């Protein structure tokens, strides 16, 4: 089954997965048409997505698991990939935990990491 990948300006992606529960699909539509209709409604009702580039790809083409979901990046026509260089809030949090667990934590480093977390705006 296809999903629609929306490519956001910051490189991250949103992925719309169709609702394939039994009994919802209009008889006159194929599964693919039903999915596309749902994607179009998503665009219609979500202005933040409406103007973004997108691709309809097979769900199996997405990364196999969502462990690195917030590192998923994509460009239209090139699919979705995992960018290990993306720094997430959890990464900073782990650095802070590590520093605090050290025998002699560096107070300046701790404060900087705390400030980073405090002001973190991404994921």
């Amino acid at each position: 089954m296809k999903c629609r990948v929306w490519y956001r300006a910051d490189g991250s992606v949103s992925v719309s997965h169709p609702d394939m529960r039994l009994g919802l699909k209009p008889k006159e539509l194929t599964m693919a048409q039903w999915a596309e209709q749902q994607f179009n409604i998503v665009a219609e009702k979500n202005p933040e997505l409406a103007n973004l580039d997108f691709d309809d790809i097979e769900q199996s083409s997405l990364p196999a698991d969502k462990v690195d979901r917030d590192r998923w990046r994509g460009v239209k026509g090139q699919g979705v990939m995992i960018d290990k260089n993306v720094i997430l809030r959890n990464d900073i949090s782990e650095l802070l935990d590590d520093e605090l667990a050290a025998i002699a934590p560096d107070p300046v480093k701790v404060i900087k990491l705390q400030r980073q977390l405090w002001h973190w705006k991404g994921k």
Partner: protein
Amino acid sequence: MALFPTSKRNFPSRANGEDAFDASDINNLNTELRAVIDYLGVVSKAQNIGLNDLLLNYRQVVAISVTTGDTVSCPAQRMIIDQRMCANTAAITRDLTEDIPSPSTGTTYYVYAVDSNVPAGTFTIKFRTSSANNFVGERKIGSVTTATTGSPPDIVNITDDDATTAIDSKLIKAWCTFNGTGTPAYLDSFNFSGAITDNGVGDYTLTIDTDFANANYSAAINVMGEVDARVAVGQIKPTILPLVGSIRIMVNEATAGSALDLAWVSVILIGDQ
């Protein structure tokens, strides 16, 4: 035929309807089942009685149509539309629509199903709302399904299959539970369907089938935590205001604030449609 004692025409209109009248009222009416739909569109059944007299109590109604299911044939049955104090009374047969002329705001109207031996079937009640003397839509507000002749069920269903107007701002207009792990998927829903958009870990956009009238609806979001018992919370996505046709929500660990994908996320929306 005395369908309804005059002294009983002013039944209180209650949202839950359960205590709107007592057993003696029912006996006096010689009915087997009464359903009450007040102006809020709340339907209830008073007692475990059969479907013989269906009472609908609502306000600002200008038209009522009653149809039976395709497989039901009971031409002898009738529905009576009765405005309080008998200002306007009209009888309709099944499958016909009767418009009440010059309806009055705040007036209570009653609908009675009369005669006995109402057969198995679904009885659908619709009404129209008015605006500046123009009908703006027809809406099914409730239905009663009988199981067998003389043995109807206890449940009166509220149906909401017309998107033009709302029944009641107090009713839940949309709810769902979904699994946010892996490929997000609804477990069950009402007025939520279509694609779930995965914006990242614990970050989902849900699309509402029938839009709200405005984006000031109320949202309740709840989640079931993980196996390691970390406390998790659901919330509207910070800085992303809900829209009339969609809502973006977040699931986070309560203490650290980290986003989480959880297997059970529930959302309830209430507001004007």
